[in-house]
């Protein structure tokens, strides 16, 4: 039996911009949870979201039963935001006084070809608002760290490390190891390093 959750169901949202590896990392996290004995319902939005679109993954974790694939509004427990605007978008929809947020502060500009707001908000104010709306916030400079490690695509694994380091998911580092090995057989070492870097950053 998997260990008790701080809340059942525990609703995790992973959001970002298509092309950042959101779905891939959500899959690794989802599989790790299944291997740890949890019931997982994993809702994804894709379809016509090519590169550059907003992407969200809903992961509902339970000890008891399967929940529906869409998280009800205001019922997010943990938000893993790979981009500040996308993090704020999720806080608007799923926020509540207890929500905890792990956020990558690197902005990705957008073109809204259909009119409406096009200006990217002031990034410092946006991050301050994210902290204000979350009960706890971990700002993980994942893109910057990933670039230092030689490839910006590692940001998603660094952020997953952030979730583990923040100790808010019922997952240990070792439950990730074998899955990373399975997913990235050729690039395991660099991904494992990225995971550890994320854990360190969340703890510091």
């Amino acid at each position: 039996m998997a260990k008790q959750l701080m809340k059942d169901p525990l609703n995790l949202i992973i959001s970002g911009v298509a092309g950042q590896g959101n779905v891939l990392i959500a899959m690794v996290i989802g599989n790790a949870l299944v291997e740890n004995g949890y019931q997982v319902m994993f809702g994804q939005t894709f379809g016509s979201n090519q590169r550059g679109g907003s992407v969200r993954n809903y992961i509902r974790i339970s000890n008891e039963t399967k929940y529906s694939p869409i998280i009800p509004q205001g019922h997010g427990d943990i938000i893993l935001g790979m981009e500040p605007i996308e993090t704020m978008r999720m806080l608007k929809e799923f926020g509540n006084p207890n929500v905890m947020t792990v956020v990558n502060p690197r902005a990705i500009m957008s073109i809204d070809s259909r009119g409406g707001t096009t200006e990217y908000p002031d990034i410092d104010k946006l991050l301050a608002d994210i902290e204000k709306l979350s009960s706890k916030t971990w700002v993980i400079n994942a893109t910057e760290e990933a670039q230092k490690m030689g490839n910006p695509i590692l940001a998603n694994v660094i952020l997953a490390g952030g979730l583990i380091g923040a100790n808010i998911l019922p997952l240990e580092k070792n439950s990730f190891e074998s899955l990373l090995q399975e997913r990235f057989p050729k690039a395991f070492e660099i991904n494992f390093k990225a995971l550890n870097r994320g854990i360190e950053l969340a703890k510091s």
Partner: protein
Amino acid sequence: MKRLLSGNEALAWGAYHAGARVATAYPGTPSTEILETIARFDDIYAEWSTNEKVAMEVALGACYAGVRTIVSMKHVGLNVAADPFMAASITGVNGGLVLICADDPGTHSSQSEQDNRHYARLAKVPVLEPSDSQEAYDMMAIAFDISEQFDTLVMVRTTTRISHSKSVVDLSRSRPAPTGEVGFPRNVSKYVMLPVNARFRHPLVEERMVKLAGFAETSPLNRVESGERNLGVITSGVAYQYAREVFPDASFLKLGITHPLPRELIRRFAGQVDRLVVIEELDPFLEEGIRAMGVEVTGKDFIPLVGELSTDVVGKGAVSAGILTEPPVPPGITAVADLPKRPPLLCPGCPHTGMFFVLASMGQRLKPPDSGDNPAKKSNLIITGDIGCYTLATYPPLNAMDTTACMGASIGQALGMEKAGIDTNIVAVIGDSTFLHSGITPLVDAVYNEGKITVVILDNGTTAMTGHQEHPGTGVSAQGNKATKVELENVVRGVGVSDVRVVDAFNMKELRAAARSALASPELAVIIVRGACAVGVPQRGEPRVVDAGKCNRCDVCLLIGCPAIQTVDDKVYIDTTLCVGDICTICQQVCPQKAITPVTGETE
């Protein structure tokens, strides 16, 4: 073996473990991953068919030959396949035949919402609806058994949420060894639908429905979950999950078989509860069937007809109907300013962009997104469109599409406008996969009826919008083997078009020249614009940059609509992580100031 699988993956595993030997499909969100998953197994034949009608016909032939067969498609695909689908109903099957039909409530990526359960009523075939991935897996085996036992095609209806959500599946079965001989037992009265035989088959179809209704009464797929008697909920598919969350204490009749209805079971359930409601997505399919039985029931008076359901939507409806006193109030954060959206766009390096830029400039349609003006309204060029990534050219700054209806419609629509008497130039724009799917017959029509339109085939060498599936023009099969390549220019010339040009998608001069001469031509012209989809190109070239000294902010480059070209602090700037570089260079070619160069500053 327990695995985290999407509904589509689970359906594929279910079919595989049920012994399916042939699988056919045409890609379409949200159904595409069914065939993609099943094509990875070696001991099954899987094909991307040219279109859904062909997929259904190939499947029909395979099942006549005695093997278990699945055919999968999105909801609107069944519109295309409706003719052989109806035929499958009347002839029945030999080996089991299961149609997986994926509806798209909420119109996530379709031209319409439609509830395909109506098709099953029309064709008089049974419908199974799974509520999660485990049921999707389990139901496939049952669907094949029903198909063979009752001599009928079986429809398994999923929806976007079921197809694309992942949950844990216990893959409890394994693939059986092939049984029985493959062979077609000639049976004229069953397989040759001459009127005399069709007349004889129709009563058998009606009898089949009576027997199936009896089967539905006792099938474990239809189950009662007893709870409090003040509220009874009849539901199916993903709606079951939402309803369970909103009414945790109610009694449930969960229907896995939604056509034909288990009437006695429903009557008994209705008698056990004080208030009976139906919670279903899209049309009141179950509700009307139950009401027609004379049972008092409500549903669509508080559950929307339109769009996708969710726990929130069902909860709000329940409050309005007085079933719940208050929804679980979301704390809601309203004090946040509007955020910029990220609508889907043509990608950086998209091979469709150049031709659209040319057509839009010739039709004087280019306008920045924030201008609020729609120049396409008074353009001297009409552009009929089709279904694919390129439909995104509808939006500013390109404004380069005026119609989109269904697969292949662009060519017939253009011809119709011409024949109605429109005297401006008319261009039909269609992708390679869509052209092969259903653009050939309207092109034959335009040849035969002496149309003068211009047809642009955007050939990016893949089915891009659904995630890069192979098609007859790629020369590769669904299972990754080399296949005979159907050459578009041969097809076009072969049906009788003499004015055919093949141009490089990234050469602006060539594109302009081809468009000018085709539009000026007094006869039917076809331009094939060839260039690989940018998402499929593994190597990126040297990105382009803007020389701020030369740039005079004429902003022509911004009218391309490339997501890599942005303005930052009043300067035009190219995001080098997005720019694909050498393979594209459209911005460099259109810049009047020659201010766009490779990063190293060298221009040829």
